């Protein structure tokens, strides 16, 4: 994270995602989005619900196919999942409940065909990294939501990817847990030096963790603005009470507020028309 070379780790060029609804309408979720992510950089995607930020993340990871445009990873076009290069941490709890914690962490290496002893070593190391070494033989159901997401991070890290894509990983957690996990994530990333793309709803989380915050507009999703956070790493808890932090957060709030307002008004006017139509009919 400390050094960033000039060659981007990830290049997004004019990516558009459109799909048909069941009623036959075409919805444009992403409209010609272009973005470079440098090696070792932490980039957050933030925007109103439905702006396509998660969709963009899935496209980056090759889990969903864009309608047009291109994503390249180390100069290679992304056409499907590349588990050796890209790790995913999902919003929902996606640990397999029938496997112990350690065997959840090693499952990707198992898919890769790594030998039992070697993958267990890797998994144990990464489980220690997220501070859950003591829970190796527990089952996911015995862990809290925050702990499960830490296991999911260990699972992604154990694949040793260059890039981690995180889709609101702490979205389902309470504010305090979220803050602590954010600080912990920063510490872990400091050690591993991964490139991160992080989708979030939380302004504070975005400012606290990111090198750059990408603000997206309401549907169709476009990049509205990119904010840079110049703050040395690892980020200290004191940063979140500094003036610099508050200014950035407020700036982000203003940018986002317009978009959320626009998105909400669009939804409401749609609903209002339907009600009016019903009355007249």
């Amino acid at each position, binding site marked *: 994270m400390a050094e960033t070379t000039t060659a981007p780790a990830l290049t997004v060029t004019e990516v558009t995602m459109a799909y048909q609804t069941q009623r036959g309408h075409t919805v444009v979720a992403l409209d010609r989005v272009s973005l470079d992510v440098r090696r070792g950089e932490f980039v957050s995607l933030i925007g109103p619900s439905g702006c396509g930020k998660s969709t963009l993340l899935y496209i980056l*990871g090759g*889990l969903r196919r864009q309608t047009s445009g291109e994503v390249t990873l180390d100069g290679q076009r992304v056409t499907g999942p590349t588990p050796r290069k890209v790790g995913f941490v999902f919003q929902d709890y996606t640990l397999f409940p029938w496997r112990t914690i350690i065997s959840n962490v090693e499952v990707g290496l198992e898919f890769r065909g790594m030998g039992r002893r070697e993958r267990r070593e890797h998994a144990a190391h990464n489980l220690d990294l997220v501070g859950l070494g003591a829970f190796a033989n527990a089952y996911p159901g015995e862990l809290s939501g925050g702990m499960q997401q830490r296991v999911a991070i260990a699972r992604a890290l154990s694949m040793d990817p260059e890039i981690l894509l995180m889709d609101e990983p702490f979205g389902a957690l309470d504010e305090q847990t979220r803050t602590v996990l954010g600080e912990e994530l920063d510490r872990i990333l400091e050690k591993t030096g991964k490139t991160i793309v992080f989708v979030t709803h939380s302004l504070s989380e975005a400012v606290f963790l990111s090198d750059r915050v990408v603000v997206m507009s309401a549907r169709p999703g476009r990049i509205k603005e990119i904010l840079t956070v110049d703050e040395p790493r690892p980020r200290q808890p004191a940063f979140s009470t500094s003036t610099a932090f508050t200014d950035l957060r407020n700036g982000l709030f203003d940018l986002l507020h317009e978009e959320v307002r626009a998105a909400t008004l669009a939804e409401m006017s749609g609903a209002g028309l339907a009600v009016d139509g019903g009355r007249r009919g």
Partner: protein
Amino acid sequence: MARRERLTAVVIQLGLAAVVLAIWVYQTRAGRVSPILLPQPERVLQEFPDLLRDSTFWTSLRTTALELVGAFAVAAVAGLVVGVLVGRWVPAARIATPLLAWAQTVPIILFYPICILLFGIGPMSKVAFGGFYGFFPIAANTVLALSTVPARYLTAAAALGASRRQTITRVLVPAARPLILSGIRLGAALCLIGVLAGELLGSTEGLGYQIASSSGSFRTPELYAYIVVALVLVAIFNLAITRADDRDANARV
């Protein structure tokens, strides 16, 4: 569950059984009930030495046990094959699910005479009928289990680089397993009902036949003894199936 509570439950259960036995002893001792309808418990007990020496008994037991195993094999294999084929194909699951649910409310015993016509009066008709009876819950649960595996597990597997085969064997099957196993348990119980009912209604051998024939000739103590044997067989069979199920349940929380 706490050890203590479990112990209390067992004590109460044994107590209830003792009450039933006490009523049985009291009613028969006082001669209130004709011994042809309800023999004294010790008369039933006295049947066992004879029964255990009787080769007819052992042939009957063997026949019923084999029919049971056969019926269960038919139900499990057919149920799983149909369940997997249908469950992995969304349109088929949509069509089949209500049909399978509906089939479970039909009194399948109505089809037993057809089974006899098709497979004869011997063990084959019991295997077929028991298997047919047990097939529906196994197929229905397998369809349900496979069609409701959360998509997020499959997405996670794809992101972690699972091949198609790994996705099936390491994600789909274990995710669907608990529901499939409960279907198998239900199906096994129905196989049992199917086989015994089949023997009672029309057969020339087996425990059910012995029960029907001792009832028909008023050999009541023997009738009760055979019922006890059938219940023991049921208990052993259910225990075997439940054991397999529990072992799986212990592996998860």
